[in-house]
């Protein structure tokens, strides 16, 4: 649901940033505020976690890690990889 609603936020940013030189500057300016950074971080974190978990689904579709043990290991890998990516994302944003 958050991702679905987040599409609107990201489209708005794309619209504004492409509309004109001033719009681009406005989006850049807005993204310097701590609140905006936090919102974008949260939104992109949700997106990247969804992406990492989705890649795991594709790997399992291919028949890898479908056992109980494999499933447990896979879910842990997803959490660890997502955590690393989300921390890196935070470092990049701030």
């Amino acid at each position, binding site marked *: 649901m958050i991702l*679905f609603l987040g599409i609107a936020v990201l*489209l708005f940013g794309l619209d504004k940033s492409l509309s004109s030189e001033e719009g681009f500057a406005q989006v850049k300016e807005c993204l310097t505020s701590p609140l905006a950074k936090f919102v974008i971080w949260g939104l992109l974190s949700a997106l990247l976690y969804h992406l990492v978990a989705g890649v795991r689904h594709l790997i399992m579709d291919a028949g890898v890690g479908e056992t109980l043990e494999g499933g447990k290991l896979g879910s842990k890998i997803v959490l660890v990889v997502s955590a690393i990516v989300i921390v890196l994302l935070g470092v990049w944003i701030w």
Partner: protein
Amino acid sequence: MVTNVTNFSRSGLYDWMAQRVSAVVLAAYVLFLLGYIVLNPGMGYAQWHGLFSNNAMRIFSLLTLVALGVHAWVGMWTISTDYLTPTALGKWATVVRFLFQATCGIAMFVFFVWGVQILWGF
């Protein structure tokens, strides 16, 4: 009872495939765009404008908008048929679920048209 009359293709197997094909397109687009922004720190308007003026980028973006519509529909359908059920909501579940799905469908259509306007309107 929840039936599959409102799912994307009236076939679970086809929906399963559509979800995954659209997922690959979305993943490629997100990784490309994030990578591009990360690798071009301090990017100005001219470069950003140039990227989206490129026809290949417009085709990639439009493909992503289509994939987004498919992916979001399958996702929202799955959520609504899992949780907005007679067991959870009683006898009005079908009406509530249908209205929820209709709202999602309209929102997705608006996102698509808006996206096209953004891509070809600047």
